[in-house]
C-alpha cells in the first residue's frame, strides 16, 4: 500500500472561506493509501513547505498531494520542496481546489464535496506516478546559420563574437544576399554596400566562422543540441585554396554575355565569374551550363591562364558533415516573378503589364541594379531596351501583394518605402524626369518612414496616383500605361519610358524543402512559422531551430537585423550550459508490445518517433518497433491516443494515472 501524504491549503481565506478544509483533510485521511492528511494556512509559505518536508521524512511518505491552487501556479514550488526532502518530485501532484473550486463556488457544502472529489482524483493518480529524473541531452555548443544575407551575417557574427563556432551556409557563390545588390537604403539613403561589405568581410575572416558558400543543406538528423548537418558543396571548378582572386580568368573568358544573376539580368558576366567585385569569398565560380570546356570540351583558356593552377574541371560536388547544437534559418526572400511563375496554379500573373514582353518593364530589384553605382550601368540610369535615359518612369506598387485574385493577399511591407526611394533616386539622377507612382495605399509605419514618403512627393515631386494600372502597351518605343486615379475618379494614361513593378516579396526558392528537412512549419505562402507570433518570434516549434529575416515574413533591413540578433541571443542562451535539461514528462513506447504500425510516427507533431529493429544476440531480427527520441519529444501524448495496443504511454500522464483519475470519479 502506498504511503501518501495529503496537504490541504487554506490559502488564507481564499480556500478556507468556501471549502471546509478540516473536513477535506479528514476525508482525505480515509482515502486508500493515504498515510497522513493535514491542513495549513499557507502551504506555499516556508512553514507550509517545511511541514511537507517534515512529514515526508517522519511518515516515510512515498507520494504527496498538495491541495491548493493551480499547478500552473505552484507545482514547481512544491516539487522542489519534495525533492529537498528526498522524495522524487514527480511523485507529487497538486489538487486545484482554489481556481477551480473555492473561487468559483459559494455553497460551502457542495464546494467542500467537490474539493474532496478533486483531491480524490489526485490521490488516485499519484499512486501510479512514476519517479522520473530530468532528461539530460548533451549540447554541442556550435551553431549553423543557413543563409548569408544581412540577417544570416548578423546572426553568425553575434554568435561568433560570443565565443562559439558558427557554420554559415550560403547557396550563392558569395555571401551578402539581396542587400549587397541594393543601391541606397531608406529612409537614410545611405549606400547599401558601404554598410554591408565590411560586415561581409568580417564574417569571411572571423576565426570562429566557417563559411560554406555555393553550398546547400542536404539533410539534417538529430535533435536540439545534437544536430548533424550534411552540407552539399556544389561544384565550383575553382580550388578555393589555390585561387588568389586575381580575376585574370574572368578577363580571358570568351563567353562574356551571360545574364548576371546578381544583376537580375540587367548586366552580363563571363562563364567564370565572381558575382560582384566585393564578393566574399573573393573567388570565382564556373557556370557549368555555359562554360565551353564543360559543355563541349572546348576553350579551357582560363585553365591555361590561371597562374596558381586553381581551375579544376574535374571538380565534383562534395558532402561535408557538421555537428551543431542550434540552427538559425535566414534564407530571405525572392520577388514574385510576374507573368512567369505564380504562387499557385489558379492565379495568372499580370500578363497585362507585359513583363518579360516589353524590355522596359522591370521589377524593383532590377531597378536597384540599374540605379546602383556599382551596377551594370555604373549608376547611370539607362533603360534596358535601347539604353536611353528615361525621361519618365512609372512605378506600380502592390504587384502581387494584396491581390487576392492573382497574387498574394498579404502586404509585402517594404514596397511603399522602396518605391518612394526609387522615385527620389530617379529624380536625383534625372532632374527633368517625371516619376509617376500608382499605389493602393501608402503604408509607411516606422521611424522617419512617412516623412520619407512625403519628401518624395513634396520635395522631389513624384506624382502619386491612388489607383491600379489596368494595362501597359508599347507604341513606338513608348510604354502606354493606362490606369485609374480613383481620387479624381478618372482614367489616367501615362506615356512613359520605363515601368518599375514593385513585386511582392515571397520566401526564397526551396524554403518548403528546407522546412521539411528541419521539421519546421511554413504558412500557406511558404513563410516559415515562428513558435508564437508575439512571445516566441524567433523560435520554431522544433527545439533548437530558430528563424530570422525575410524567410519568416516580409521585412526590411533594420527588422531583419534586429531579429537576427534576437535569434543569435536565443542560441547563446541555449549554449550557456553544456547539457540541456529536458522535462522527463514525455512519451515512451513499450517495444515488446509495439506492433510496429507506426501510427505514432504519422501523428507525432515533432517527428520524434524513430523506427528501430530489435535483434537477437546473433543479429537475427526479432521485430521492428517504434521508439521515442527523447531529444525531440515534447510530451503531448498524441501518440498514446493513436496507439492501438497502447504500447505508447506518456510519462506524467500515463494510462494508469489517467484511468485511475477517471475511475476515482465514479
Amino acid at each position, binding site marked *: 500500500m502506498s504511503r501518501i501524504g495529503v496537504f490541504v491549503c487554506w490559502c488564507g481565506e481564499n480556500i478556507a472561506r468556501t471549502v471546509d478544509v478540516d473536513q477535506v483533510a479528514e476525508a482525505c485521511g480515509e482515502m486508500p493509501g493515504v498515510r497522513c492528511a493535514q491542513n495549513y494556512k499557507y502551504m506555499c509559505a516556508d512553514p507550509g513547505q517545511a511541514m511537507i518536508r517534515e512529514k515526508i521524512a517522519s511518515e516515510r511518505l512515498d507520494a504527496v498531494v498538495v491541495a491548493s491552487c493551480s499547478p500552473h501556479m505552484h507545482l514547481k514550488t512544491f516539487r522542489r520542496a519534495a525533492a529537498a526532502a528526498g522524495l522524487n518530485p514527480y511523485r507529487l501532484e497538486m489538487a486545484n481546489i482554489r481556481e477551480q473550486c473555492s473561487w468559483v463556488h459559494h455553497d460551502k457544502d457542495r464546494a467542500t464535496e467537490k474539493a474532496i472529489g478533486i483531491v480524490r482524483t489526485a490521490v488516485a493518480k499519484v499512486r501510479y506516478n512514476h519517479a522520473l529524473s530530468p532528461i539530460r541531452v548533451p549540447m554541442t555548443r556550435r551553431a549553423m546559420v543557413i543563409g548569408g544575407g544581412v540577417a544570416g551575417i548578423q546572426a553568425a557574427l553575434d554568435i561568433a563574437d560570443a565565443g562559439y563556432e558558427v557554420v554559415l551556409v550560403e547557396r550563392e557563390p558569395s555571401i551578402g544576399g539581396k542587400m549587397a545588390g541594393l543601391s541606397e537604403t531608406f529612409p537614410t539613403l545611405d549606400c547599401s554596400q558601404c554598410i554591408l561589405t565590411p560586415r561581409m568581410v568580417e564574417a569571411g575572416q572571423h576565426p570562429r566562422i566557417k563559411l560554406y558558400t555555393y553550398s546547400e543543406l542536404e539533410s539534417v538528423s538529430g535533435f536540439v543540441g545534437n544536430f548533424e548537418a550534411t552540407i552539399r558543396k556544389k561544384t565550383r571548378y575553382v580550388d578555393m585554396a589555390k585561387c588568389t582572386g586575381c580575376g585574370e580568368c574572368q578577363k580571358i573568358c570568351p563567353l562574356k554575355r551571360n545574364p548576371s544573376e546578381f544583376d537580375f539580368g540587367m548586366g552580363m558576366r563571363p562563364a567564370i565569374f565572381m558575382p560582384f567585385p566585393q564578393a566574399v569569398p573573393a573567388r570565382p565560380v564556373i557556370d557549368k551550363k555555359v562554360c565551353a570546356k564543360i559543355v563541349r570540351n572546348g576553350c579551357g583558356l582560363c585553365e591555361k591562364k590561371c597562374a596558381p593552377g586553381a581551375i579544376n574541371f574535374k571538380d565534383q560536388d562534395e558532402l561535408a558533415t557538421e555537428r551543431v547544437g542550434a540552427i538559425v534559418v535566414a534564407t530571405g526572400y525572392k520577388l514574385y516573378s510576374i507573368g512567369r511563375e505564380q504562387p499557385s496554379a489558379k492565379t495568372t500573373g499580370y500578363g*497585362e503589364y507585359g513583363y518579360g514582353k516589353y524590355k522596359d518593364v522591370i521589377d524593383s530589384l532590377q531597378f536597384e541594379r540599374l540605379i546602383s553605382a556599382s551596377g551594370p550601368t555604373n549608376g547611370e540610369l539607362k533603360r534596358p531596351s535601347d539604353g536611353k535615359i528615361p525621361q519618365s518612369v512609372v512605378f506600380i506598387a502592390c504587384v502581387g501583394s494584396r491581390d*487576392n485574385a492573382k497574387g498574394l493577399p498579404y502586404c509585402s511591407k517594404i514596397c511603399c518605402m522602396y518605391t518612394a526611394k526609387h522615385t527620389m533616386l530617379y529624380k536625383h539622377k534625372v532632374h527633368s524626369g517625371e516619376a509617376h507612382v500608382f499605389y493602393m495605399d501608402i503604408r509607411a509605419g516606422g521611424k522617419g518612414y512617412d516623412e520619407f514618403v512625403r519628401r518624395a512627393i513634396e520635395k522631389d515631386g513624384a506624382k502619386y496616383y491612388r489607383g*491600379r494600372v489596368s494595362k501597359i502597351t508599347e507604341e513606338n518605343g513608348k510604354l502606354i500605361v493606362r490606369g485609374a486615379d480613383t481620387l479624381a475618379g478618372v482614367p489616367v494614361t501615362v506615356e512613359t519610358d520605363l515601368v518599375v513593378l514593385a513585386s511582392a516579396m515571397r520566401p526564397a526558392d526551396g524554403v518548403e524543402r528546407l522546412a521539411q528537412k528541419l521539421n519546421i512549419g511554413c504558412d500557406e505562402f511558404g513563410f516559415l512559422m515562428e513558435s508564437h507570433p508575439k512571445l516566441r518570434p524567433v523560435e520554431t516549434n522544433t527545439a533548437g531551430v530558430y528563424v530570422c529575416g525575410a524567410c519568416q515574413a516580409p521585412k526590411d533591413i533594420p527588422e531583419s537585423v534586429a531579429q537576427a540578433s534576437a535569434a543569435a541571443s536565443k542560441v547563446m542562451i541555449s549554449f550557456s550550459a553544456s547539457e540541456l535539461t529536458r522535462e522527463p514528462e514525455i512519451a515512451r513506447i513499450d517495444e515488446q508490445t509495439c506492433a510496429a504500425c507506426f501510427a505514432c510516427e504519422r501523428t507525432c507533431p515533432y517527428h520524434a518517433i524513430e523506427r528501430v529493429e530489435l535483434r537477437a544476440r546473433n543479429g537475427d531480427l526479432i521485430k521492428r518497433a517504434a521508439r521515442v527520441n527523447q531529444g525531440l519529444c515534447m510530451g503531448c501524448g498524441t501518440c498514446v491516443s493513436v496507439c492501438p495496443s497502447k504500447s505508447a504511454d506518456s510519462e506524467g500522464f500515463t494510462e494508469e494515472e489517467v484511468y485511475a483519475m477517471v475511475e476515482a470519479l465514479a
Partner: protein
Amino acid sequence: MAGRMDAPPTKVVRLVQLGQWDAAMRVESIWQCVSCQTCSARCPKLVDCAGVMDALRQLAFERGAASPAGRAVMVFQRAFLENIRRYGRLNEIDLIARFKGEVFLKSRSLAFLFRDAGLAGQLHKRRKLHLTGEKVRDRAVVERIFERAGAGGAA
C-alpha cells in the same frame, strides 16, 4: 470603356458597398458597360465588377429606374429576350424591327430609324439577310422556362 463613363466602376462598386442602391442604379455607366469582363479579371480583391453591373441593370429593369440613355440598351435587351421567348432562337429581322420601332416611337428620330438601313442591301448581297428566322420546334417549353424564371412578360 471607363473613359466614357460618368462614374468609373470603382465609384459604382463604392456606391454598392455603401448600400446606395438607388444612386448606383441611376448611374449611366451601368448601361455603357459592354460586359467585356476586364474589370472582373483585373480586380485584386476578387470583386466581380461586371457581375455588379449586371445586377444593377437587373435592379434598374425591375424598378423601372433606367436612366434615359440606358433606355435604348434596355429596350434592345428586352426586345431580344421577347424575341427568344417567341421563337426560341434569335430572329434578327424581327428583333431589329421591334427595336427600331420601339425606339422610334419614343425618340421620333428618323435618322435612327434608317441608320444602318443601307446595310440591309449589302447583307442581302452576301446572303446574310434571313427574312424568315429560325424557330425551335418545342416553343411551348421555351415559353414555360421564361414563365418559371419569372420572365414571362419579358417584353
